[in-house]
């Protein structure tokens, strides 16, 4: 053992630090979204003024945007799969599609928020309003961060400057992206489909 790296040995488990760190982070995120969802569940029926959930939710519209987000998980996983095979062009293509689908979802959310606002549901209108916008807004910010990461990745790949193993970077962003998607799976059911 003369010419070794700083470790001189592989990791104790043989798995990558980054990936383990990512899953650890996602475990922590469960408690973050759990808290926001619980707050919403507690407060969703408390409306002292302004509209009630059932009066403003547009289920067909939200179903479509949920579907879009769900499909972005498919394109993401295809990007990861292409990256593992070393197919750069395909990776870039699927990453771009994923970002576009994500942007569609966020666009839909912006539209939805505007519509709700016009129908009288402001952030301060009621407990329902505060907790609804907080929960879905947090989720929207997570999606937006994901989009930025995806687009940066595409840009960086073009100049092929990314440090570290390329496939692993794609995989990590993929994990994050899927997590945001599963959070929405829960929000869609608990917030939109189950009436108060």
């Amino acid at each position, binding site marked *: 053992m003369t010419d070794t790296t700083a470790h001189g040995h592989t990791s104790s488990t043989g798995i990558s630090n980054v990936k383990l760190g990512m899953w650890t982070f996602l475990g922590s995120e469960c408690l973050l979204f759990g808290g926001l969802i619980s707050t919403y569940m507690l407060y969703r029926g408390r409306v002292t003024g302004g509209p009630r959930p059932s009066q403003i939710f547009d289920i067909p519209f939200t179903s479509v945007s949920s579907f879009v987000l769900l499909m972005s998980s498919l394109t993401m996983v295809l990007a990861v799969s292409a990256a593992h095979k070393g197919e750069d062009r395909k990776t870039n293509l699927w990453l771009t599609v994923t970002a576009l689908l994500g942007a569609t979802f966020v666009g839909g959310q912006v539209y939805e928020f505007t519509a709700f606002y016009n129908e009288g549901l402001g952030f*301060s209108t009621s407990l329902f309003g505060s907790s609804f916008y907080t929960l879905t807004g947090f989720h929207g910010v997570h999606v937006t961060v994901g989009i930025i990461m995806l687009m940066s990745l595409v840009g960086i790949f073009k100049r092929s400057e990314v440090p570290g193993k390329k496939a692993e970077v794609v995989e990590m962003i993929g994990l994050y992206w899927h997590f945001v998607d599963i959070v929405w799976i829960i929000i869609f059911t608990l917030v939109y489909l189950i009436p108060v």
Partner: protein
Amino acid sequence: MAIIEREIEVMAPMVATPTSTYGVLKRPVAATGWRAWVFTVDHKKLGLMYGVTAMFFFIVGGVEALLIRLQLAAPNGKVLNADLYNQMFTMHATTMVFLFVMPMAAGFANYFIPLQIGARDVAFPRMNALGFWMFLFGGIFINLSWFIGGAADGGWFMYAPNSGPVFSPTHGIDFWAFGLQITGIASLTGAINLIVTVLNMRAPGMTLMKMPIFTWMMTVVQFLLLFAVPVITVALFLLSFQRNFGARFFDVAAGADPLLWQHLFWIFGHPEVYILVLPSFGIVSEVLPVFSRKPLFGYPFVVFSGAAIGFVGWGVWAHHMFASGLGPVSVAVFSLTTMAIAVPTGVKIINWILTMWGGKLVFSTAMKFSIGLIVLFTVGGLSGVTHSVAPSDTQQTDTYYIVAHFHYVLFGGGVLGIFSGLYYWWPKMFGKMLNERLGNWNFWLMVIGMNLTFGPMHILGLQGQPRRMYQFTEARSGEGLFNFAFWNLVASIGSFVLTIGILLFLINVVITARNPTKSPLDPWNSRSLEWMTSNPPKEHNFDVIPTVHHLDEFFHRKYEEDPATHTMRQIATAEEIMAEQERNADAHIHMPSPSYWPIVLAFGLPVITFGMIFSHLIAVFGAVIVFFAAFGWALEPSTAPASDFETNNSAPSTALDTVGKS
């Protein structure tokens, strides 16, 4: 923990120093001077920086405590007015909990976990630096409020409706909430980092059950942080959104439930108290065996009871809310779970006592602090059990009895353990031993002072003195000699004795720094891996990564059991073991390279939160800083590529990123 006295070490020749740079900005390459600290990603330097900063905040929190005690020393105190008093106890607690004990523990963890598991650094060195800077900037941010209209004043658990703009119109609570948000992210990154480090970077042969006990307890703490911090994050966001953006979360007029905050706070808050004491439990579990000349009694029990505390700690939070009208079922359930959690804690105490039992005790200062912890924490634990009984708690809650209880556990448990660790590991960190005679005074003054301060508070509480009371009148101080006024005076005198004790520590640090005498390599005849390096350790920690065969590996390299007499007999000295290591040193060790980005990114966050309070334009500016720093970070490899190193090495450059990246 003065930095001044630590000589800037000359890098060992086999560590390659990067000469050129890569990334968006040029990489910082200074190995000496202030830049070697500000841009460092070395876990030991960061550990020391955590320690120094925490010590500074300990003094701040201590001064706040003294002002409180001055105010209450006699009837009709005039030192603080009611408003300032509210700010004082709120900030005292916030500072002690979030800016002293937690970062001090983070400092110990940072410094010693990689050493104890035989690693050369943590898994994500840059993220480690980021964590420190976020903690520092977050702490400064919270305290800025003193100069901008007044500090937070809702008590450290900041219940609604006191936390609302009606009862707290200054920006104090805004600073408090955003600042804790930042230090919270710091804890979270630290937790992820250390968990991955412990799970993935142990030296060959070190199974989980051969891990030093301090590392074990710190790992439990990191899991608690990992899962508890997001809960307070949610709570703090709700609070900030209410105060800064008009949300209604705690607005009873809108139908809100003020208990929402209480629940979220204590779901975080109870694990938090274990976050505060388990590090000290870990330290004590290292110190007692060394100075009893015996292995830790029942290592697996100590490990599993630590894990059990971490686990059951999630199911007891509502014992902080017995008086809030939870309803009989909740009260009964939480009362029972709380009694249950005393069991694993008791297991630990028994293990410590049995470790000392029959040992050849060496009463060094570190050992005294550890024994002090066992005694005083037990006192606090017992008063804790008295309020697990809900009816008796109804009597005690919000009185000085509670103040007495949690200072016995936090000061008697947390702080004494920290001091034990400082005395024990000082030679490791600085290559010099703290003066033991001064240490003796330090210890006794602290213990006497602490009992004088907090002991009478039990009586005061049972006599009915309410917590957070800013003044008492002559008429209310009662009859006879041993009245309110008397015990309050005793407590105040005690707090000054305590202060002298702590000052002696600082004096000891200065004296030690001036004293040229170096510490021996293994001054305490220690047992775990961190002592198998030089004092202070080289930048790359170990010349050779040790292969581990035993719990207490270092001890087993020094001693062997004599089969005839069943006693341990020395087979090697620490010096011999070190010399052996140096002979076989690994060539070409690449350590992660310093980086500008952690401090830049961390600086962006308080700019954002400052903007949230005052002007959204500033927030946008902060966001831009964070954005660019994140890009710089992502584009920069965590270890400079091979071409950047003086010693050209033949290994493929892709092999260099194994130290860790982030």
